Structures are given as C-alpha cells and as structure tokens.
C-alpha cells in the first residue's frame, strides 16, 4: 500500500523507537523526537508501538496514497488535510486511494507523526528503521524524504488493525473515521515549564538548578535540530575553569558550551561529550521539549529523582491504558 511523496516539507524522515544497544560503538540512540505522539499514532492504527512512522517537522509536506490505507496522525506543528478537507488527528482514518494528504500549519507543537497500519517498510540498520542522516543509516536510504520517493506499508499484522479496517467500512470515495479521538495535549502557558534534575556538573556553575537557574527564562533557538535543542538566554559562568573528560551523555542532557549557552541533547545526540552537564530534562518532559518551536519560551523547574521516576512510570502507564482502551473500542 504505497504512499508517494509530493512535497517533503521542512524535514520528513522515517522514524521508530530508535536503535539503543550500540551506543558503545558511538551510534546514537536515534528514534522519534516525540515518542509519546509517535507511539500513540501507532496504537491508533493497530500497530506495535515501535512500527516505523513518518516524522515531519512543522508543515508543508504533501503525500498521495496509491491505494486505500489506514492512517493515524498525531503530534504538533501541523494539521492534516485530505483533498483539502481537514481531518481530525488522534484517531484511525481509512483514506481512499489517490487522496492527496497535506500538512497545513497547526497552532502548537513542531513534530507530527503519520502512522500507517502495518507500519512503513524501511531500511533497518542495527535493529532500527530510524533515519540517522549523519551516518546515512536506516529509513529511506539513510536520508530525508524527497519528492517522488515511495514508501510501502507492511501487511496488517495485528488483529486490531484488521478489525479497524473492517469496522471503518470502506466506501472507496471518502475518509472514514470513528467519532472519538485521543488528542495530544499541549501546554498553553506563554512560558512553558520544563522539569529538570541536577546534572553531574551542576555545582560547576554560579547559576545552577539549585540556585537561580529556575528563575531564568530561555527561548528555543532556530538553530535547534534532531541532535540538540539550543536555548537562548543568560550565558552561564563557571565558578572556576575546569575541563571535563569525555563521558556519556544522553537524550535530555543539558550541556553548557564554552560560551556559556545551554543545549539540550535530543534524539540524535552523540553518545559521549566533553561539555559540563548542568542538568537533565526529566524523561516525562522529553516529548514536551521536542514539541517546542523556535522562539517558544521556557523556564526550568527542578524536581527530585523520585518525582521524575514517578512521572516517567505514570506516562508509561497512561500509554498502556490508552492502548487497552483503543483495543476495547474494537471489541478486543
């Protein structure tokens, strides 16, 4: 069931839950920027949570279906239209053959996810279809999608996907979807709060999570990408000049560069680094920081390790409950 790329938009890549297990070879963990939305999109068309999806930054992408296909669209940055009619996100939609899908500007968020029942077929490197452009790994020839590329989807593996297709009663002419939907929530606050933990080198700086850093406001830089989200704002001064011996970093690690600015490592983060690590973004807030746009303002809020783990486990529980509730709607 192919989908053809008419316009790639700002950046459209194949992503999944990433390729952990090879970080000791210097291979980044990769994967979707907002895993919450990505997993939700998969659940909504009956896929395993780690099936390959299309990740699009912001809007402008356009695709055409070449056969009837069950799709789900989640995340931010864009709304989706099929043949100029807007479609709801967060639910399974049976889309007829030869429909033109366009991503138009959305009011919030930055990364959106298109999942197709059966998952998109893609090149797998080191156990993952996630596109890692710098080393040309995974996805579609290890690169961003371009005009004319064609992506096939896999067979409907799960009972749930088969039930969804059957229950949405194809007419072959228009889109069919259920009356319910599961929306991803976006923080409407003008200055968004991102929860952080103390980093191993927090006390190297005069302003740190325990002293003053929480009062500062930072803006998301336009120079942000899949490797790192750069923050603009107050430059931090080190208490004394010290060098850090290269050591592990991970998604969410907040580094302080030589000129005192902050960067938050994201999905394609390198595996080791030499900049001091002032903080770590709570795992539960990684999808939220991924959805910030250039210019969005944030404040960092320090929480305890117990709170951070509770938030993380709660988020996992919530996703499992959603998965269960989706299955129940289709009598499974």
């Amino acid at each position, binding site marked *: 069931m192919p989908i053809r790329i008419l316009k790639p938009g700002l950046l459209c890549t194949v992503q999944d839950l990433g390729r952990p*297990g090879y970080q*000791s070879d210097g291979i*980044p963990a990769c994967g979707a920027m907002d895993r919450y939305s990505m997993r939700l999109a998969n659940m909504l068309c009956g896929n395993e949570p780690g099936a390959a999806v299309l990740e699009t930054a912001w809007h402008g992408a356009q695709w055409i279906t070449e056969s009837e296909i069950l799709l789900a669209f989640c995340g931010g940055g864009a709304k989706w239209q099929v043949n100029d009619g807007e479609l709801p996100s967060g639910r399974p939609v049976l889309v007829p053959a030869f429909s033109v899908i366009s991503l138009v500007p959305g009011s919030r968020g930055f990364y959106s996810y298109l999942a197709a029942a059966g998952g998109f077929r893609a090149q797998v490197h080191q156990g993952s279809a996630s596109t890692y452009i710098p080393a040309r790994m995974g996805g579609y020839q290890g690169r961003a999608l371009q005009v004319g590329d064609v992506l096939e989807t896999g067979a409907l593996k799960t009972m749930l996907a088969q039930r969804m297709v059957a229950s949405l009663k194809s007419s072959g002419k228009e889109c069919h979807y259920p009356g319910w939907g599961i929306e991803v929530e976006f923080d409407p606050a003008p200055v968004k709060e991102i929860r952080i933990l103390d980093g191993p080198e927090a006390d190297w700086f005069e302003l740190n999570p325990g002293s003053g850093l929480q009062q500062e406001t930072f803006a998301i830089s336009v120079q942000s990408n899949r490797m790192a989200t750069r923050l603009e704002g107050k430059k931090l001064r080190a208490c004394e000049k010290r060098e850090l011996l290269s050591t*592990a970093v*991970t998604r969410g690690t907040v580094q302080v560069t030589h000129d005192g600015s902050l960067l938050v490592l994201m999905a394609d983060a390198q595996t080791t680094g030499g900049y001091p690590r002032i903080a770590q973004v709570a795992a539960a807030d990684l999808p939220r920081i991924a959805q910030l746009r250039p210019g969005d303002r944030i404040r960092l809020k320090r929480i305890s*390790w117990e709170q951070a*783990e509770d938030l*993380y486990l709660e988020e996992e529980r919530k996703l499992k409950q959603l998965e269960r509730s989706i299955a129940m709607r289709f009598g499974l």
Partner: protein
Amino acid sequence: MKYPRIYALSEYAVTVEFGDTIDPGINRMVISLRDQLSREPFPGFRESVPAYASLTVYFDPWEVRQAWPGDTAALAVGRILEARSRFASPEQGDEQAIVEVPVCYDQTLAADLTWVAKFAQVSVEDVVRLHTARTYRVYMIGFVPGFPYLGVTDPAIEVPRKQQPALSVPAGSVALAGRQTGIYPAPIPGGWQVIGRTPLRLFNPDQEPFTTFRAGMTVRFTPIPLKTYQEMAAYADSHS
C-alpha cells in the same frame, strides 16, 4: 573526590566514574566492569557505554523496579554497580586483539602535518616516527559512529585542537589533539590536527562487523607509501 563516584545521569542511566584522568589502569577498570556486566547482566540491564574513566549503564526502569521494588530504579542500579565495581580491576579489561592500521603520511593526505611539526619543533619525519613508535589503547568510541579515542601519544607531539574546526575532514583521516590520537570514520567537520590517512573503512552499517574498534583494544600504526594507500583504498572502495 572519592572513587568510584556513582551518580544517576537520567531516570534510565547510571554512571560509575573511576577517576578523572586518561590512565590505562583506570580505563581497564571501566572495561572490566563492562565485561562483567555483559557476562552477568542484572534484570533490566540494556547496554553500557565506556568512556575514558567512566562506564554509563542504561536500564529499563520498569524491569528494575519489578526486581527491586521500593527504591527508584536509579538508586537500585547504583547499589548494584557499587557492589560490582569492587570487582573492577586495573589489571583486567584488555581486549586480546591488536589492530594494525596502515597509515599514509604523505603531505597530500595530511593537511596539518607540517603545522604539527612546526608547532612541536621537530621534523615531519620525527612526527611520523613518534606516531608509529608506540601502540595505543582504544579508550572509548564516541563523537560519531566508530570514532576511536586512542592514547596516549608521545609528549613531543602534543598539539592543541584547531581554533576553527575544518568544515569537512576526509574519511580515514588520522589526527592528533592533546595527547590523544583518533581516526575519522566518515567525512565530517572536526577540530583535530590531521597528520595522515588510512585506507581502512572503519564504519559501514551494511557490513558485519560494522565497526573496527572496541574500547579495550590495542592499535598500532604502520606507515605505508602513497602508492600502497591508493591501491588499498581502491580495493576497499570496490568491496563496499
């Protein structure tokens, strides 16, 4: 600072630091802990990442919490690593393999060789002689897929990084920074001083094994003439 220093990096990663210097004994402790964890993983263990003086251990908090309820997963893993670190030895942690790396030090492939010689106040021949005279330990892999951090170099050829990184360093470039030496697996921007190039292909995700080096290995550089480099590079290109 008291070592080992054990701290949580995130909700799903804990780091053990054995020191804060580039030292073979400290790195052997890192590698021996890595080997021990892969021989006897704890419930929820996912992977471990060696660095110069630290090992970072990734785990699944769900699985760890099931095995050790009560504490946060990071705290439980910290305790496991504290216990396991007692067995980390500065005498173990060497890989058996010695990797021979042929390097062509011809000026056409070594953008910074003359600069290095001038900075170190030795001849170009001396730079090559000093670089090939000793074996190096692979302390860690990082920066980009397959990039080996090797050390330590002769103090006579210790050089600083570039002020401005080169926009693209060719794949196979052998370079110096401080008392480290490394090899660029792919054409990428970089700030190390390039003194030669190897025809070996160090990273290819389509092949098995996909990478040449692993932390704990020993590396020796062998000088080759330009003609040999060209033949070997042509062969490598036709087989990848």
